[in-house]
C-alpha cells in the first residue's frame, strides 16, 4: 500500500506541468518572504502569468503597483523608483536589477535556479526560513 502511494505521488509530481512546478516554487518563496501577512499583494509585469499566482493561497494579484507588497518582474527593465520588494523571474532581469531585488528565479541549462541576495534581504528586513538559506548569496 505504501509503495503504491509513493508510486502515485511520484507519478503526479512527474506528470505535473511546468506551471504547477512554478506555482509551487512561488508559493514557497512568497510564504518565506511574507510569513505573517494575511494577504500578499503581488504585482506582475506580465499579465499572462496571473494564473500562476491567483491560485496561491493568501495571494492577491493587484493591478496598481503602489498597492503591491512585492513586484515580480518577468521582462521589465524599468520599474517605479519606490522602495518595493522586487523579485525577478528570468536571468536577464535578475542581472539587471541584482542591486535592488531580493532574489530571482530563472531556468538555466534546464535546471530551476533560485537566488536570494543577502544584502537586499537585509535592507527589507526579510529573514528566510532555514530551508531556503542555502539559496542566499552573499555577494553578486
Amino acid at each position, binding site marked *: 500500500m505504501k509503495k503504491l502511494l509513493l508510486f502515485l505521488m511520484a507519478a503526479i509530481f*512527474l506528470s505535473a506541468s*511546468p506551471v504547477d512546478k512554478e506555482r509551487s516554487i512561488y508559493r514557497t518563496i512568497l510564504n518565506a518572504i511574507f510569513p505573517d501577512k494575511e494577504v500578499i499583494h503581488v504585482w506582475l509585469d506580465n499579465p499572462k502569468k496571473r494564473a500562476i499566482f491567483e491560485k496561491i493561497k493568501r495571494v492577491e494579484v493587484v493591478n496598481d503597483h503602489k498597492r503591491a507588497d512585492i513586484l515580480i518582474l518577468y521582462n521589465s527593465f524599468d520599474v517605479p523608483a519606490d522602495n518595493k520588494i522586487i523579485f525577478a523571474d528570468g536571468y536577464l532581469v535578475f542581472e539587471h536589477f541584482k542591486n535592488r531585488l531580493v532574489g530571482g528565479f530563472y*531556468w*538555466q*541549462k*534546464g*535546471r*530551476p*535556479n*533560485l*537566488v536570494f541576495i543577502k544584502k537586499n534581504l537585509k535592507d527589507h528586513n526579510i529573514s528566510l526560513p532555514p530551508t531556503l538559506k*542555502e*539559496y542566499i*548569496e552573499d555577494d553578486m
Partner: protein
Amino acid sequence: MKSISRIYFFLIASIVAAVIYLYYGVSTTNIKLIKNLENIFVIQAGNFAENIEQEIKKHTDQDKRLYDLLKENEDVRKELEHTLSALVTPSFKYVYVLYRDEKGKYRYLLDGSKEDKGSFNQKLDVDKQKWNRCYETKKDQVLMQNNLEGLWITYLKPVVWGSGVEGVIAIDFSTRLPSTIAQATRPLENIFFYIFAAMGILVLILLYQTILSIRTKKESIIDPLTSTYNRNFLRSFLKSINPAKYQIMMLDIDHFKKINDNFGHKAGDLVLREVASVIKSQLREKDHIIRFGGEEFLIFLHKQNKECTAAENISKRLKESIEKRTFTYENTPIHITVSIGITSNPEHFKSVPDAIKRADEMLYIAKREGRNRIIFDNPDKEAHVSEKKTISEVKEALEENRIVCHYQPIVDIKTGDVVKYEALVRMIDKDGKTLLPYLFLESIAYTNIYTDLTKRVLTIVFDQIKLHHLPISINMNISDILDNKIFTIIVDEIEENIQLAKWLVIELLENEHISSVESMRERLSKLKSYGVKIAIDDFGSGFSNFSIFQNLPIDILKIDGSLIKDLDSSKISYSITESITHFAKKLEIESVAEFIHSEEILHIVKDMGIKEGQGFYLGKPSDTIKPEKSGLKQASEISA
C-alpha cells in the same frame, strides 16, 4: 465441421502468437539498439571530457587551485571556453565546468555553452547529491535527467588535481538524441501498429459476424408467430436429447379450421399466439415447446425421475387453462379446447421420432374419441412397441405384395352354411410371420401409405368376390368414409367392379365419434346405391348409440364380442344382447353375433333368434376362402 473450426482457431492463435512474439523481439532489439547508441554517445562524451581535462591541465599550473588560476587569468578562461564551445553540438547541448565552493554550492569555472551561458563563479543549482559523488569517488558519473527539461543525460568527469578534485566537467545531452534514435526505429513500430490495428479490426469483424450468426441461428429456430421453437430446433434437439429424461406431449387445438373460417386468419394467428403463451406460462425452465405443425404443439416435459407425473399434471392444467380462457378477437369472444396425446416413456421406443409418432397417435385417438381430452399411451402395449412396423416397412410390404387378407366365415346359425366372410388385413413380415393390424396400421395413419393400403385391400377383396361370388365384408373407420381421398378410392374401386359391388359389405368400426352425420349419411347412401351393404361393427361398445340407425342407412348390426362371450355367465350381457337383437328385428336389420367361442354360446345366440354368427367355434380366420363347410356344419355331421 468442428475439426475445421478447431484448425481455424489454431491457425489464428498461431498467427497472433507469432505477431506478438515478433513484436516482443523487435521491441527488445529496439531497446538494445537505443542502449547501444546511448553507450556510444556516453563513451564519446567520456572521450570529450578526457580531452577537456587534458586541455585544462595543459593551460594551467597545477601548483595553484584551479579556481584561483582561472579567476586571475581571464584570457586562459576565454581560451578554454572557446575550446569547450567547439564540442557543443545539437546532441551535446551544454559543455561546462563547475566547482564546489566551501558552502557546497556549485559555481561556474568555465562554460562553453552557446545558450544559457553562465558567468564565472555564478551559482548553478544542480542535484548536489549526485554531483558530490564525483568529488567523493573521483570517478566519472552518468546521470539520467528524467526531470529536467530538454536534457537527457549528464556526463560528469572530475578534474583531478593532485590528490583532490578541482572541478567537474559536465556535458549535458539533449533530449533530441533519444528522439533521433527513436525516429530510426519508428517505421518498424509503425508496421506493427498497422498489423495490430488490422488484427483488431479483424477481431471486431469476427465478433460482429459471430453475433450476427448467433442472432440468425436463433431466428432460424424460433417460430415468428408464436415465439416457440420450430422444426429446425427439433432437428438439432433430437441429436442431443436423452429420451429417458423427457415425457412427450402432442397438443392440438380442436376445430382450429373453424376459427380461421369463421373469424379469419388474423383471429387464427391470435389464438395460436395466445395458446402458445398459455402453454409457455405452464411449462418449466427445462421443458421445451415446439410448434410442430399448423395448430399442433410438441412439448418435451422434463422428467425429474422415473415416477415423474409431470405430463399428467401439466397436461391437465393446460387443458383446463385453455378451456376456461376466453380469447377475444375484435371484441368477439372465442372459446377453444385442446386435445392432447402423451408418450410417458420415450426411452422404450426405437427412436425419439417413434416416440413423437406415438404421442401423435395418442392425439389422434383423443381427436377420434371426441376431442377435448388427454390420452396417455397404454403402458401395457409398450411391450409390443418394438415389434411395431415403421412407415417404410409397411410401404415395402405393400410394394412386395406382403399385405394380404385373412377371411373369417360368418355362418347362418340355423343351417350352418357360410353366408359371408369378413376380410381381415394382415402383413407378412420379411421372416414370413403374419402380423396383426395393430402392429402396422398405427404407424401409417393419416399417410398416403394408409390410402394405398385401403386400395390394396379393396382390390384383394374384389378379386376374392369375383372368384367365389360370396359376400365379403371389410372394416373401415368412420373417418375413412369422411376422408375425401379414401372415399374417392373406395368409390373408384367399386365402380371398377360395379358388377361385384352387391357382394361387398363395409363394416364401420364403432370406435369413433361421427363429426359430420350429414356427410356420413350422404356418403353411405352413395355406396348403397352401388348395392354395397353397410354394417355397424362392435355394436354395444365404444360409441354405440341407437340414434345411429336413425341417421345412417345401416343394413347389418354386428353385436360386440365382449357381450357375446359372456352370455353364459353375465345376466347384463345377456339382457343387452337380447335388447339389441329385439331392436334389430324391429328395424328389420340383420344381426350378427361375434365371438362365438363355444357350443353353449352358440345355443344361447340361436335361442335369442340371432340369424348369423361369427367366432372361432364357427370358423377361424384363414388365408384362403374355403366355402365348403363351416365348423358348425362339420360338427353336426360328425355328431350325426
